[in-house]
């Protein structure tokens, strides 16, 4: 996050490049691109101080479509590249974009370390539970049983939960949204941008070609209200049509349960209130899965902590307290002798 100096009001379209967007028609990435462009316009972001860094994948094509600085790098390494960008110039406003394969398979290690170091970037993970660019192999977020060219009889390995992973490695900002929730996504992106540190945003994204409808059990209009809960700090954890359902904390079993207001004497007073500074609660929210529980969207967790890049530069400033280093002095350090 950085204070931007507005270069005169820009519109969403001012953040679009003249390059032809090459995603498949109907791909969820289009909606995310729009949402990001809108958000930057609303935030009055300064394109010259904004950098998009990505790895490889369909999602990772993102920087080519943003009229900002952009670096499309190599598969899985974008969090490390972005770390270098921030170490070099902490003033830049850096967004990292990638897919589930990019950031959790080949680049899982870098994602972990960027998050645990709390590098000040926004890290957007477009989770389509598939390898789009390489034509549809299953990914580390694919559900067991996913049939793909490399798993014709169905995948057999356990998927990773992106949000739980990010929480587990000590993330300071963990959030979720979907490609089609235009407003919600935009508000989450704004919160992410405002947070200092690694702002992790998992965006459920539909790959219409290789994994169409994997999220429809909670994104489709007909089930959306019952199968999504939009969490907000300080607000009761209510969901469902007319907010008639909610989450209560079962203290004996230390888990969340979905309840209906009015049934079994449940009143709004019984409903748990979202506290985004509570990592245990965030973890429980991140664990929820349909159909028994709704999917938790919004800012699951947010805490303020020093960022790695600012701490690195603070040490440098500290070391310079007694003056800038002198190369000649350094070369003459230690034992010297004179030959006449």
């Amino acid at each position: 996050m950085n204070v931007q100096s507005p270069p005169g009001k820009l519109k969403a379209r001012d953040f679009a490049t003249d390059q032809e967007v090459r995603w498949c028609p109907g791909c969820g990435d289009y909606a995310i691109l729009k949402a990001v462009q809108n958000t930057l316009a609303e935030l009055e972001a300064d394109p010259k101080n904004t950098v998009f860094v990505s790895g490889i994948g369909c999602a990772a094509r993102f920087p080519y479509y943003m009229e900002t600085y952009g670096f499309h790098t190599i598969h899985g390494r974008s969090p490390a590249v972005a770390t270098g960008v921030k170490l070099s110039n902490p003033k830049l406003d850096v967004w990292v974009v990638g897919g589930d394969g990019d950031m959790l398979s080949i680049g899982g290690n870098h994602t972990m370390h960027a998050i645990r170091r709390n590098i000040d970037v926004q890290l957007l993970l477009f989770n389509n539970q598939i390898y789009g660019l390489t034509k549809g192999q299953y990914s580390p977020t694919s559900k067991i049983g996913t049939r793909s060219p490399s798993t014709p009889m169905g995948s057999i390995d356990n998927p990773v939960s992106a949000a739980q992973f990010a929480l587990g490695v000590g993330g300071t900002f963990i959030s979720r949204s979907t490609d089609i929730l235009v407003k919600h996504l935009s508000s989450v992106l704004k919160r992410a941008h405002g947070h200092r540190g690694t702002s992790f945003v998992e965006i459920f994204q539909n790959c219409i070609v290789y994994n169409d409808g994997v999220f429809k059990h909670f994104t489709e209009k007909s089930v959306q209200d019952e199968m999504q809960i939009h969490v907000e700090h300080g607000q009761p954890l209510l969901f469902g049509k007319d907010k008639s359902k909610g989450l209560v904390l079962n203290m004996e079993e230390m888990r969340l349960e979905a309840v209906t207001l009015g049934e079994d004497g449940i009143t709004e007073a019984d409903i748990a209130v979202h506290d985004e500074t509570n990592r245990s609660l965030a973890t429980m929210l991140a664990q929820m899965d349909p159909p028994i529980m709704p999917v938790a969207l919004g800012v699951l967790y947010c805490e303020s902590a020093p960022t790695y890049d600012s701490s690195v530069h603070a040490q440098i400033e500290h070391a310079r307290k007694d003056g800038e280093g002198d190369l000649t002095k350094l070369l003459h350090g230690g034992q010297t002798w004179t030959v006449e």
Partner: protein
Amino acid sequence: MSEVAAIDRPNENRQEIESAVVRFAGDSGDGMQLTGSHFTMTAAIEGNDLSTFPDFPAEIRAPAGTTFGVSAFQINFGARKIMTSGDQLDVLVVMNPAALITNLADVKPGGIVIADSGAFTDRNLTKAGYTESPLENDSLEGYRLVKIDMSRLTVEAVKEFGLSNKEGLRSKNMWALGLIYWMYGRKRQASVDWLKTKFAKMPEIANANIAALNAGHAFGETAEMPAELGTFEVERAQIEPGVYRTITGAESVSFGLLAGSQLAGLNISFCSYPITPASALLHHLARMKNFGVVTFQAEDEIAAATAALGASYAGSLGITSSSGPGIALKMEAIGLAIGTELPMVIVNSQRAGPSTGLPTKTEQSDLYQAVFGRNADAPMPVISVSTPSDGYDVAIEAIRIATKYMTPVMVLTDGYITNASEPWLIPNPSTYERFDVEFRTDPENFHPFLRDDKTLARPWVKPGTPELMHRIGGIERSYDTGHISYDPDNHQKMTDVRAAKINGIADDIPEQEVEAGAAGGKLAVVGWGSTYGPINRAVNNMRDDGYDVSQIHLRYIWPLPRNLEELLKTYDQVLVAEMNTGQLRTLLRAEYLVPAEGLNKVNGKPFLIGELEDAIRIRLEK
């Protein structure tokens, strides 16, 4: 003896010698590195030229008394120019049986072996693999053996300071140092001063060490040493006047990187992941924060290389460093640097391989990896460090080339150079020509792959610059617009221009000179990197003996100097000496179709001068 009786007697009847090679060897805990560095400091102060080589065990805390826990420090010092740390030992000091068994083979016939007999206990003998004490049978007959119970003498010497037996024994290395100081007529003052400063807060430790040092010296002086052993005098060497220090290869490269970044007007982002023997660079640079140096210990080498590249993208000088296995992990990122044409410096401290190989042993076997080791046509400049102090100029040159040509540059150094040290005439940084980077700020007709007519380099733009927003990446870029392009003809053009850019650097580096001897003749010995010292000494020795042999030593491995082909073809024979199975030889043959032969070895040790002399003799006498 009390306090500092560091009064040194005049040299009576000392035998004058031109140079000597001494090795201190003992258990890791015996303080051999410190002993060696003291002897080095004193030799330097007394005006000798010198070269040193420390040999550490691979294990961090090897069990005491074992052969794999032996730590040694070798110094070659002389009244003439010293080119190597020495083939064979004149004096070997051993602090236990394991040190004897692992080092004896390097002592020259009739050389002096000084052993701490107090450490030759049954237990230590067994650990070293001796069935009976070599000090008591005739196994050391070919050497001049001096048995001294240094352990007991040290404990006695430090008794008055109230230390425990164990603490007292720690000063054993100083006792040995005192004795060797006496042998070579060296002053003790510098060591005494050092001990006093180092242990200012623990005066009893300082005094005990000084007492041990003096006791060792007195032992020699009071004629308790066998008379036939003799004492020696090594005169001052003819050395260029100026202020000197000793410097290791790791230090010179780190200083050079800092100096080069200042000449370019850039900040350094040094990103690395620990690996022997490259870690020393990270450690040195991590202490340069007051120069604005950013160091980053990444999660792995891939992250180190990509973070360095990210830093370069953002306008700093990204540098990464590793050894062979780590360099392998960086290659995809280096390919991206080549494709996106961003500057970056990669320092490879080579070690023996493949895979983990011998992490603490030196080798020059990453030349192929440096020149050829990437997917696709991905040319990159490669330059090499020849001596411990050479790293300074080589690092500066790497930065000059990287920034002027917008390219990654690989610096090849090795485990030997990294750890070895030599005296260095400290340069004056202000005498170096600046090569300030000019970042592009002009939006007029800008695109990111516009090229400079002469260098073919593209512009470097810092994110944050108004009106120059652009995207770059690994997908092929259009020659005309810089946008991504899948056009095969454009790929041909871009591949050609990337190659032409790197080849063109040959016009911006010095022509190859003949290091020793003359252009043309019967035999040229060609080398690169750390073989410089032994080749130089061997070629000069052989020339003194009337052989027609010359030395050609390459700093620039890729592109090669433009006159090299012509130069090589002026010799009847070309012999490429390298610590690998023939990598530079292959390169020279492939480039020039010269019938170069190889002299190759990979036993973890630098070439001996004698080995090279033999190879030269065979070729010129057949």
